[in-house]
């Protein structure tokens, strides 16, 4: 089997002699990574094209049957609540475009890596990522027909303030060299953080009656397990090829752990606040999927190569009980400028939060919500009318606190070419100062608004430029989605319901 696979795939390569090899592969030297023997790259799956297409075609047939059945039976009415879809709005706006970015850049690896084994693995992943882009769009397309917030996700990914968090993350990876991309996406995103970034959405779907998304999640699982294996294989290969690669790879792990971890801030608040039926708390997910599985497992294995846990990992651990609360509190107050809605966590939700965050919720965050409860009683739901300052690296509003003090805002400043730049944390500051020429280029949404590049000077101008319509954002209660949801469910007397001819 192995021999046959190698004959079919690997042996297709040859040494060019009419042109210089360094001209054929011009991108694999500038990063300083040394590769001595590309044939040492193991591809544990040894897929052939015929096996791949048959298996994938079968999976898609089943997935699309579920999507069609769900749409035909008005399955959206069986969700726990319309507000659940806020998680999916965030997913379509924030994650699906990243799948597409991955598709394009794995095609780049499939051209620009010197070895035929990794090129073929990258090509499989490239078209898998196209599959995920499209199956996610097709899965969520049916919700778009009935609910707000989905309809302009592509333009919003390029424009909206909170979506520049995932967009800048992936742009950062695409503009890096091929080896850094492998560590950034293949390893850090697909392996190290995938259970924190991707899986919570799928689990949330299964707990909230979202059969299509859950089915998509299961259907992507075998692809993802191939991608995880590729990521792990990539890092081991780089580390084994030359000792001089170890410090380079370590610095990339340090950078991409923190970069990816900051993106998970959006997931943390989704898990703890957006799901009507909770799956698990962010803290629990972080402890299980990151501390136990990665720090306790993966990094023990990588220690053999001289790799240590990521720099600033202690800062991440230290904020596991405060992260989701701080982020949601901010999004709650800015959701009038977002394409999802937020709402006040009711008594049950607050009980759940207090139980899951015994050390922090009652002490630090309940008082904020109590104050907001009084605002609501007086008819004054709170929105912030100003614009937040954004971190130069992760682009999240500067809402995080000092690692040892959850009541003091953390703000770091760096000077580059005489200009001052603000970052939200030690991790982001370190990333900035390592590559300032890169991060000064960032397209920061708030700066751009001030510079007049986002439709005009007023909030309505900017929202129009975002393509945000009535009902897309703001408060959930009384929103278009909430009102429609109730009227569709109250139609039990069938007076509003027709029948198909």
């Amino acid at each position, binding site marked *: 089997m192995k021999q046959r696979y190698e*004959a*079919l795939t690997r*042996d*297709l390569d*040859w*040494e*060019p*002699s*009419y*042109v210089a090899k360094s*001209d*054929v592969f011009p991108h694999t030297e*500038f990063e300083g990574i040394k590769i001595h023997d590309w044939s040492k790259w193991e591809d544990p799956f040894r897929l*052939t*094209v*015929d096996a791949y*297409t*048959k298996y*994938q*075609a079968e999976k*898609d047939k089943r997935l699309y049957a579920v999507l069609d059945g769900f749409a035909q039976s*008005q399955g959206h*009415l069986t969700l726990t609540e319309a507000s659940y879809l806020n998680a999916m709005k965030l997913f379509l706006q924030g994650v699906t*475009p990243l799948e*597409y970015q991955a598709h*394009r*850049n794995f*095609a780049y690896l*499939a*051209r620009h890596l010197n070895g035929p084994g990794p*090129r073929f693995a990258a*090509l499989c992943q*490239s*078209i898998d990522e196209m599959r995920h882009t*499209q*199956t996610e*769009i*097709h899965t969520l*397309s049916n919700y*778009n*027909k*009935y609910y707000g917030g989905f*309809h302009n996700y*592509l333009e919003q990914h*390029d424009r909206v303030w909170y979506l520049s968090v995932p*967009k800048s993350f992936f*742009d950062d990876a695409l*503009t890096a*060299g091929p080896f850094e991309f492998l560590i950034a996406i293949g390893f850090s995103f697909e392996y190290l953080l995938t259970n924190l970034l991707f899986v919570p959405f799928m689990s949330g779907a299964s707990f909230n009656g979202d059969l299509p998304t859950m089915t998509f999640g299961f259907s992507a699982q075998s692809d993802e397990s191939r991608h995880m294996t590729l990521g792990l294989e990539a890092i081991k290969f780089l580390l084994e090829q030359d000792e001089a690669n170890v410090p380079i790879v370590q610095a990339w792990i340090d950078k991409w752990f923190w970069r990816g971890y900051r993106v998970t801030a959006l997931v943390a608040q989704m898990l703890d606040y957006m799901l009507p039926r909770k799956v698990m708390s962010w803290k629990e997910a972080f402890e299980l999927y990151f501390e136990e599985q990665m720090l306790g497992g993966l990094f023990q294995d990588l220690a053999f190569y001289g790799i240590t846990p990521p720099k600033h990992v202690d800062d991440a651990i230290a904020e596991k009980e405060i992260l989701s609360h701080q982020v949601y509190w901010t999004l709650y107050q800015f959701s009038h400028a977002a394409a999802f809605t937020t709402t006040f966590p009711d008594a049950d939700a607050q009980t759940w939060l207090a139980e899951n965050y015994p050390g922090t919720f009652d002490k630090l965050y309940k008082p904020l919500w109590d104050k907001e409860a009084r605002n609501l009683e007086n008819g004054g739901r709170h929105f912030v009318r100003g614009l937040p300052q954004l971190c130069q690296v992760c682009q999240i509003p500067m809402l995080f606190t000092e690692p040892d003090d959850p009541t003091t805002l953390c703000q770091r400043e760096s000077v580059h070419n005489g200009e001052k730049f603000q970052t939200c944390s030690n991790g982001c500051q370190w990333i900035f100062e390592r590559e300032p020429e*890169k*991060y000064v*280029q960032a*397209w920061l949404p708030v700066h*751009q608004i001030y510079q007049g590049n986002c439709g005009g000077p007023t909030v309505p101008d900017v929202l129009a430029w975002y*393509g945000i319509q009535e009902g897309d954002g703001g408060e959930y209660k009384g929103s278009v989605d909430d009102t*429609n949801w109730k009227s569709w469910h109250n*139609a039990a007397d069938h007076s509003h*319901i027709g*029948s*198909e001819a």
Partner: protein
Amino acid sequence: MQYELRTQVIDPPRKTFDHLVRRYGDRPASRYEEGTIDIQAKENFHYRPLWDPAHDIYDEAYSAFRLTDPYSFTDPRQYYYAPYVTSRAAMADAVAATLDYLDSRDLLSRLPDAWSSVMGELLVPLRHYESGAQMVSCDIARFGFGTTITQCAAYAAFDRIGNAQALSRVGIALGGGTAELLADAKTRWVEDASLQGLRRYVEELFLEKDWGRALVRLDVADRLVYGLFFAHLDDAAIDQGAGSYSLVAQHLSSWFADQRKWVEALYKAWVTDPGTGAANTQLLAVTTTEALAAALVALGPVAARADELVGAAAAASLDATATTIRDAVAALTA
């Protein structure tokens, strides 16, 4: 008579996504459209590539070929991932059925010797040509402008590795179940005088930075290679009693017919573009003419070797294909 199933009907407030409504009007969109149109990010890229700071992540300046609206081109096959893999799974089944049949009737070892040599010396080494075509197509998938184009290129890249694997299987079958003939074919690809022109053509193509020109240069070579091996020699094989060559050739020939559908549609979009059509037409004519001259030099020795082996007027067929391509160019600029 039909029974009346009562279902809950809710008029959806929206038919599809905004970008599709802007483009096509307020109508339901197909899955191809929802999964393809406008997907590539358009603006506000955060950083420039470290390996090419002169360009944006997606940048129309990666090619001299331009479309005023990149989505004026759509894949005539309407392939998004699901129909693409479904179609390829069926193709793979057909190839497997052919190989099983050839194997069960021991047909490859019963080929006339000369045709056995055509397959071993010339056909099986094309797996390396396909592998090169995969790399070129991957570059187009990354640097092309607009998802309708890059999606076709990505699937084409995957097809090419599939073709290479199918040819490898033919080599294994021809080698009596061993990989010996594949090793032999690789040596031929690297050393045989008759194949060096083609190898050189592919290697030089790796250096083409303009994805549009790369696409045209690959397509010109493809038209000569596929015309020679999977149309002309296919006929000759049947005439000379080497039917099993034809059984193999049918699959590659039908793949190529499928491949050319999108390439032709892209050419058409290029030359009929109201803004950039004239410049694209010039470029297409010049690139095709240059590529054709080089590809004829590359393939001449291949055709000559085929003629030595089976006397099939392969060289003349190459010239005939070249004339067809020249006529198409002349029609463009007429």
